[in-house]
C-alpha cells in the first residue's frame, strides 16, 4: 500500500513537472514556429535562441500586480482560474505515457492510474473545463468578459457532442474503455486506429481544437472583437493560470489523440523503459500541427462556427458511428 502511494506520488510529480515545463515551452514553440512561418525571428534575446524566454515570462507574470476590478464578484472571480487550471491537469492522471518497465528490481507501470473507464474519465474532466471560462466571464462584471463566457459555453455545447461521438468508433472497435489497453492493441503501425477510423480522427481533431478554444475556433477570446475575452479582467498570476490551463489542454488533447489513434508509446527500436520517447515525439507532432493550423487559417465567424458544428460535424459523427457499428456487427 505504502509503496503504491510513494510510487504514484513520484509519478504524479514527474508528470506534473513535465506537463508544466511542456506548457512553458509550448508557448516558446508556438512563438518560434509562427515567427518562422511569417518570416520573422521570434523570441531571441533571453538565452541562446531565446530558449530562456518562457522562464523570463513566468517570472514576469508572477511579479506583476494582481489587479482586481471593483465590480467583480470576489469569490467566483477567484475560483474561475482554478476551475480552468485544475481539470486541464487532471486528464494526465489516466494517460499512459510509456510501457511497463522494471527499474531497480521494481515493476513500474507507465500510467499514474489505469482506470477501466479511462477514456470516459478524460471526457468527463474535459467537459468541466468550460466552467473556468463561464465563471470568469460572469464574475468579471465586464461586457467583454461576459460575451467571451457566453460564446465559450455555446461553442463547447455545440462541439462536445461531436467530440464525444468521434471517439465512440474507436471504442466500438477496441471493445475497451481503458487507455492502456487501447495502446496495447495498437502494437504496430498497421494497427493504429487512425487507419480504421480516419473520419473519426478528423472529427476528433476538429472538435478538439474547438474544445481547447484555439484558432481557427478561438472565438471566446477573439482579440480583435472582445479585447481578451473571458480573461480581460484578469492579471498577474490569475491570468497565468488561464494561460497555462489553455496550453495544458492543448497538450492533453494531443496526448489523448496520440493514445487513441497513433498507438501511444508504441514504436520500434526503443526498450520499454524509453518508450516514452515515442510518445513525446508523437505528441510533439500533434502540437506542431496545432500551431501550423493557427498560422494558416483565419478565425471563423460566430454563426459559421455554429453551423459547422451542428450541420457538418455532428451528422458526420453520427454517420461514422453508424457505419462503424454496422461493420463491427458484421
Amino acid at each position: 500500500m505504502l509503496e503504491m502511494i510513494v510510487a504514484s506520488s513520484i509519478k504524479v510529480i514527474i508528470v506534473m513537472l513535465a506537463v508544466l515545463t511542456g506548457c512553458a515551452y509550448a508557448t516558446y514553440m508556438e512563438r518560434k514556429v509562427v515567427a518562422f512561418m511569417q518570416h520573422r525571428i521570434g523570441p531571441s534575446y533571453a538565452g541562446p535562441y531565446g530558449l530562456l524566454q518562457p522562464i523570463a515570462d513566468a517570472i514576469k507574470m508572477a511579479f506583476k500586480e494582481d489587479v482586481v476590478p471593483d465590480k467583480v464578484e470576489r469569490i467566483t472571480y477567484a475560483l474561475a482560474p482554478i476551475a480552468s487550471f485544475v481539470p486541464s491537469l487532471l486528464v494526465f492522471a489516466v494517460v499512459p505515457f510509456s510501457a511497463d518497465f522494471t527499474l531497480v528490481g521494481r515493476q513500474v507501470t507507465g500510467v499514474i492510474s489505469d482506470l477501466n473507464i479511462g477514456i470516459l474519465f478524460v471526457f468527463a474532466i474535459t467537459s468541466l473545463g468550460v466552467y473556468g471560462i463561464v465563471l470568469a466571464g460572469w464574475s468579471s462584471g465586464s461586457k467583454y468578459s461576459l460575451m467571451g463566457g457566453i460564446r465559450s459555453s455555446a461553442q463547447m455545447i455545440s462541439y462536445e457532442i461531436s467530440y464525444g461521438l468521434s471517439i465512440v468508433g474507436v471504442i466500438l472497435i477496441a471493445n475497451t474503455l481503458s487507455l492502456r489497453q487501447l495502446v496495447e492493441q495498437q502494437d504496430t503501425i498497421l494497427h493504429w486506429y487512425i487507419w480504421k477510423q480516419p473520419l473519426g480522427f478528423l472529427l476528433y481533431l476538429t472538435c478538439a481544437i474547438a474544445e481547447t478554444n484555439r484558432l481557427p475556433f478561438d472565438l471566446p477570446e477573439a482579440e480583435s472583437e472582445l479585447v481578451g475575452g473571458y480573461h480581460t479582467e484578469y492579471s498577474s498570476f490569475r491570468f497565468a493560470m488561464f494561460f497555462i490551463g489553455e496550453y495544458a489542454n492543448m497538450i492533453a488533447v494531443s496526448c489523448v489523440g496520440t493514445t487513441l489513434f497513433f498507438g501511444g508509446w508504441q514504436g520500434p527500436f526503443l526498450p520499454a523503459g524509453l518508450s516514452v520517447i515515442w510518445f513525446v515525439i508523437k505528441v510533439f507532432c500533434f502540437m506542431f500541427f496545432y500551431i501550423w493550423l493557427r498560422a494558416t487559417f483565419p478565425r471563423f465567424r460566430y454563426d459559421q462556427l455554429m453551423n459547422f458544428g451542428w450541420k457538418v460535424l455532428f451528422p458526420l459523427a453520427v454517420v461514422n458511428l453508424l457505419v462503424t457499428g454496422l461493420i463491427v456487427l458484421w
Partner: protein
Amino acid sequence: MEAVQPNVGFVFGLFAAIIITSALLVVTLKNIFHCALALIVCLTGVAGIFVLLHAEFLAAVQVLIYVGAVSVLIIFSVMLTSNLASRRIVQTNQNALVAGFAALIFGAGALLLLKLHDIWPKAGSALPDDNVMTIGKLLMTDYMLPFEVVSVLMLAAMIGAIVLARGERS
C-alpha cells in the same frame, strides 16, 4: 481495494454533507447564478458517492452529462435570459409549498419501494468486473422498454423546446 475500506463511512458522510448543504443552497440562495453553481457542486457530490460504490461508469457519466452538459446549459440560459450586464435575477420561491409537497411524495414513494423490494446488494457480494458491459447489456435486454420510453420522452422534450423557442409566429 479492501485496504481502503475503513474510511468509507467518513468519506460517505463527507459527500452526503456536501450534497445536502449544496442542495439546500440551490433552493435558498437569492442569486440564480449562485443557485446554478450550488447545483453543480451537488451533482458532483453525487458522482463522488457513485465512485464510493465502485460504480465508476455511473460516476463518469454523472459528471459528463449532469455537470458537464446539463448544468452548462442551465448556466448558459441564465446568462442569456438575464439582462446581459446585470446580475440581479433574483430567485423567487413562490412554488415552495407545492415543490416541497412533491419532494415529500417522491421521497416517501422511494422509501416505500425500497422497503417493499429488498434490492440492495449485500456487503461482500461480488462486484461485476465490467460494469459498462453489464449496464449496456441490461439496457438492451431486460430494460429495453423503459429505455425506449425515456428516448421517446426526450424526443418529445426536444420538440417541445423547439416549439417554445420558435414562438407564435409562422
